[in-house]
């Protein structure tokens, strides 16, 4: 494919180019990570000790900054002692892709380290429930309110100035308040996700509703539609595909509030797992858990996109880019 045809504004790609470029979007960052991890000449600012030699404070497997290691080697050889030996290594917080991949498997099969601890799957399931309820509660009020605000200007004027103000308040700022009101368990966590999602939701969905082609409303009116039928007969079905897309974006939004929400009150869910693993310096597990969130998010979104194409076969707006 010629370069000129790849860089044209809004030009759809051929199916093959779409596949290749899509795969590259994951291959490129992972490739970069592999280079940094597996090629000793790139970065590797530390040395992992394989033989402490005569240096009493070193253990096998310990990480040491390269210049500190070099000076230990120099000292030892100067004094005729056995020099320590080691291999170039990256800091412990950057495990290699292979280690993370292994941790991906083992973190699911490893029992919790403490008696009251949770398996990774349990933590994840708990997080999914928090997201689910936060998102559902927000949507139950936010979607109808957004549609109504979009449809009726008076209602928009009553709600939107306040909502505009409120959406600038960072949701985590309400953490302490929510704990005081809702206790320390799941209540405040769900509340933070609701606060983080709801206000954006109303505004986004109201905007989507306003983008409805007024000619469709006029056509419906000339067919004898009464104005209270307009909402259910025309407005809602007409915006449904766009509303569905908004809801997908907002679900992603809800996920971004998850970690903050789970730190509130008693730390729980995937956040608890991540902080625990980080405390024990099991960084491959940390990466595995973070990646798991990404996979879950992307997975749900892809499923929902697929479902959307089934639900709205008439929707052409994004068909050529999908």
């Amino acid at each position, binding site marked *: 494919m010629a370069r000129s045809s790849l860089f044209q504004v809004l030009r759809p790609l051929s199916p093959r180019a779409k596949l290749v470029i899509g795969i590259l979007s994951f291959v490129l960052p992972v490739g970069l990570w592999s280079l940094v991890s597996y090629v000793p000449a790139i970065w590797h600012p530390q040395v992992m000790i394989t033989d402490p030699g005569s240096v009493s404070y070193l253990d096998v497997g310990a990480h040491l900054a390269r210049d500190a290691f070099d000076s230990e080697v120099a000292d030892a050889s100067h004094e005729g002692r056995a020099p320590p030996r080691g291999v170039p290594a990256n800091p412990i917080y950057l495990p290699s892709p292979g280690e993370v991949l292994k941790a991906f498997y083992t973190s699911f099969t490893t029992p919790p380290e403490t008696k009251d601890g949770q398996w990774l799957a349990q933590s994840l399931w708990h997080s999914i429930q928090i997201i689910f309820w936060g998102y559902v509660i927000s949507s139950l009020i936010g979607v109808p309110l957004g549609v109504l605000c979009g449809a009726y200007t008076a209602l928009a004027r009553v709600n939107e100035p306040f909502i505009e103000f409120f959406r600038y308040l960072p949701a985590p700022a309400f953490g302490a308040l929510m704990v005081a009101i809702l206790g320390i368990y799941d209540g405040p966590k769900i509340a933070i996700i609701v606060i983080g999602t709801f206000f954006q939701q109303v505004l986004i969905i109201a905007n989507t509703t306003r983008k409805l082609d007024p000619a469709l409303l*006029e056509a419906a009116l000339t*067919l004898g539609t009464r104005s209270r039928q307009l909402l259910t007969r025309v407005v809602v079905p007409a915006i449904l595909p766009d509303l569905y897309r908004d809801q997908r974006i907002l679900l992603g939004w809800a996920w971004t509030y998850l970690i903050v929400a789970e730190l509130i009150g008693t730390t729980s869910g995937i956040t608890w797992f991540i902080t625990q693993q980080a405390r024990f310096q099991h960084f491959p597990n940390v990466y595995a858990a973070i990646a798991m969130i990404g996979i879950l998010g992307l997975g749900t979104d892809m499923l929902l996109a697929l479902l959307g194409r089934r639900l709205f076969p008439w929707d052409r707006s994004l068909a050529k880019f999908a």
Partner: protein
Amino acid sequence: MNDIVIPGGVIPDGLLPSYREQSAAVRARFDSLKAREVILTVSKLHKTFESEGKTTLALKDINFSTHRREFLCVVGPSGCGKSTLVRILAGLEEHSSGDVLLQGQPVSGPGRDRGMVFQGYTLFPWLTVKKNVMFGLEVNGHGKLECEREAMQWLQLVGLEKFADVYPHQLSGGMKQRVAIVRALANQPRILLMDEPFGALDAQTRARMQAHLLEIWRKIDITIVFITHDLDEAIFLADRILVLSAHPGEIQELIEVPVPRPRSVAQIVSAPFLATKARLEELIYAGAHDSAEEEDYPIMGRMTHVTDNVE
């Protein structure tokens, strides 16, 4: 007045019959048309717009009436308010003063007794062709089975039954407008308002749609008010043509088209057709001379070599 240029040559001015001259058959048709009851009456209609504190008179003292099964076209230069007029008739816009009476009853707001076909495509994209046609019946409280049966009958009538389960985006522009016409007709309105419905179609499709519309109009008890800026289209379709002038929009003349029915494409070079067209051009373009539009096209300086000519 100018000479008329036709494909076969030139008809010198004066040899063309007057557009007021009607053959006996045409006169008889108009007599029977006017004997039918009046469907729509517009009297002393005014429309003003308020914008930035300024009041603009869009329509001034519009008076006309249409009889049952009449085909009325409204033409005029851009800005004459013909779209505003049809939107007022549909009830989509309010008039400032005057009366719009449908069978003697004043019109307020849109209603199923006045169907409308728009220039843009306004089929509901989430409904199949059949469900689009059912829409009007359903919102007016008919049972689902009845709506379905009637919709299918209408689709069969205009030969669209094959496309009953197809979504609008799968149809061509002409097909979309055919469905839009059927959707409006399924409600059995007294009057069908059409706001440049074929304006977005290519010339070939447009010609076929005009013939198709006349065929529908012949077979159904419907009165049509058809807005267009295409003079040939107006003459080809109309019984009478309402000519509006711009700024403010007011009636210049209500022309009785002397072209006999049934209409065919061949009539486009017939004397009554050309006479009517000459009159329309005179009315519409004569008024346009003093408008600002004329000054907007300057004579350009040459940007090519002096020997490099295209004509």
